[in-house]
């Protein structure tokens, strides 16, 4: 098989990835990531491809050969003329499109699960999140009846306070979810509470959106500060309920 020239290889890789992104994120996942972010990714990909291909001097030469011959090889006059007319027009067109005033909202990236503080002050007490455990968790084995009462109490807390946003089915699709951004999290999903320790949930529920560090954009989170509405006991109960209803297991410290 004939070897594909390095230049063409590089182009194929860059465009392949670009159209792959467009296909997956724009077409299949319906504009999951904004254009500005896509451009940023593409910048790194082009830089990466260049770095790989120009790693050796010979590689650089091979990569640039077709461009060089375009300018220097007298037999390529026809192609050269076409390329030299098309390239400036493409560049001018691109600049024109970029300078058209953008109406795409500014990009806001936030960390969904930021690192928790090691200790936190709630209800006037200091809790060490590295060792904090759910005081009712052991009832699961020791006193199943008492445990199911606790879960039931958690269910009450949930319908009275949480379902408006997180949904009756704990799927993040409560009656008001569509009006919130960021969206209330989906507890059925394997990417939320199934990944977390109960102490993390305790911190998140007690301190809500405003308790988040800056990288998680506390100013836009609509998650209320439940310390103001619920007792410590109720928070531990609702945590039991979240795991019981979804069938997920909390992550333990050993893992």
């Amino acid at each position: 098989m004939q070897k594909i020239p390095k230049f063409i290889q590089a182009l194929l890789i860059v465009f392949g990835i670009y159209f792959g992104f467009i296909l997956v994120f724009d077409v299949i996942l319906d504009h999951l990531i904004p254009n500005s972010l896509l451009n940023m990714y593409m910048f790194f990909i082009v830089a990466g491809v260049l770095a790989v291909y120009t790693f050796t001097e010979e590689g650089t030469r091979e990569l640039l050969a077709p461009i060089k011959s375009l300018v220097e090889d007298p037999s390529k006059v026809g192609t050269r003329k076409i390329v030299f007319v098309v390239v400036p027009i493409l560049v001018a067109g691109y600049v024109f499109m970029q300078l058209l005033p953008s109406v795409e909202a500014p990009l806001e990236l936030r960390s969904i699960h930021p690192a928790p503080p090691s200790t936190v002050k709630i209800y006037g007490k200091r809790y060490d999140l590295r060792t904090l455990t759910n005081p009712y968790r052991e009832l699961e084995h020791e006193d199943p009846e008492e445990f199911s009462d606790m879960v039931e109490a958690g269910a009450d807390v949930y319908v009275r306070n949480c379902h408006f946003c997180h949904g009756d089915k704990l799927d993040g699709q409560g009656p008001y979810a569509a009006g919130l951004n960021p969206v209330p999290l989906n507890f059925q999903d394997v990417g939320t509470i199934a990944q977390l320790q109960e102490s993390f949930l305790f911190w998140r529920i007690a301190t809500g959106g405003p308790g988040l560090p800056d990288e998680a954009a506390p100013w836009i989170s609509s998650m209320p500060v439940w310390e103001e509405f619920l007792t410590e006991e109720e928070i531990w109960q609702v945590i039991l309920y979240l795991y019981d209803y979804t069938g997920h297991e909390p992550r333990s410290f050993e893992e």
Partner: protein
Amino acid sequence: MITLTPLKFSRKLPLLLPLFGAIVLCLSVVPHVAFAAEGDVENGEAVYLKRCVGCHGIDGDGLGPGYDRLVPPPRDFTSGMFKIMSTAFDGYVPQDQDIYEMIRLGMPGTAMPGWADVLSEQDMWDLVAYLKMFPGYDEETPGPVVDYGEQVAISAESIEIGKTLFLEDDRCSECHGDEGKGDAIKRLLGDNGERTWPRNLTKPWTFLHSNDPKDVFTRISVGIPGTQMPSFADPASKLQLSIEERWHVANYVNSLAKTVEVVSAENTVVKSHRLDGEIADDPEDAAWQEATPTTFFLVPQLIAKTRHFTPSNDTITARSLYNDDEIAVLLKWDDRTLSLPGDEDAEKIADSSIYEDQVAIQLPVNPTKGAAKPYFVLGDKERPVSLWRWRSGTTTEPQSASVEIATGPQTPVEPSNQTVQANGRYESGTWTVLFRQKLNADHDSALTFAEGEFIPMAFAVWDGSNSETETKHTLTTWYWMLPESSSTALPFIGAILALLIVIGLEMLWLRAGARKREAEA
């Protein structure tokens, strides 16, 4: 009707056999009907205990722990009342299929979710069988289904006839308003004494079922049991409608659905268009008509003390224009009531207490740096927000507008030394309020304003007839406003420059190539 005597039957038997085959096939393809009769009550109970007790209660009495925070409240199944029913108006037992559909699809605009994504069809049929035990409907057969006659297709004429019937003798408009927005002229209660509001028929996403003409036909024919929405098939009613007339009205109701000023999730930016001349006061003015509307969901204030669980408004639409002197924002939202404290009629419709209607635009006081914004519920100590607030007035006080500074949901707002102008108008169930703010009139202008730069913006609405005041209101999260740039030359200049630069580079390169060839030769 075809009646077949046994003799004829046997003679036609060979012909009928394939027909029987087809019926049997249908029954097996559509197993709902078959299962419905014999849904497994035991499994139904198990599913009910896991999924439904939180709202409907262990005893099916609607007294689950959440009942006092939900409007409408969860259904009390022991009452035997079902709102969405296709059994003709004089029956009260719903068809199994009706109950099944409500479990499957849920009831939009209420807390009742659809269950199709977590429960199997069998589970849902088992639930139907279980629910029917509460009022003892397992022992009763439902009456006949509504007579649909022949459906009248949607057409301009049919819609026109429907409109006439809708307004005739105030048949529907008495409750649903002249334009169908549910702007009530009387106070309506449900059977359990809970407050109900007539549906805003221009918002089909708030319908318990759907605005498909057939569903609307069923609602008009049966009414909505447990509420004051009556049956128009009932011969005892002075306002009774024939089957054909009901189709016309259904087609009209279907045509009322809003197509502009509806929420589209991608659209998070209020675009402020630049005008060269004056900004008109009249929302019907051509410039306002051309301004792009952007609509947002309103969410009840469930976040800070004191919370609000029973909102009545659900969307707000914003438009904006600006010129060299000022920026104007036009807000529009459907509100069923003009809340006028001191007015006897307004007080009759309102909840126990009545307040002014209000709307507020929230903006950061200081320009935002990086991604950081003020807390979306009334800002915070570090990053205060300013509120442009408009109040609808009372019988003794006129409308008013003011600018306030807020530093968080729990701290009282402070008056600002700025002013804003605002003027509101209420018509057929819709408030239209126009805000105007002078640009750079005072040094600490509330709006740091630059063409082409995004400004965070949020909104809050109070419906005074729904006891909304202070922290009890609806709000939006942060969105954006963008004063669109007026200059259109920049992209052209940029493109020409880019063209020249690239051609220049090409020339240099060609020259270099030519020189190299010469040298080689």
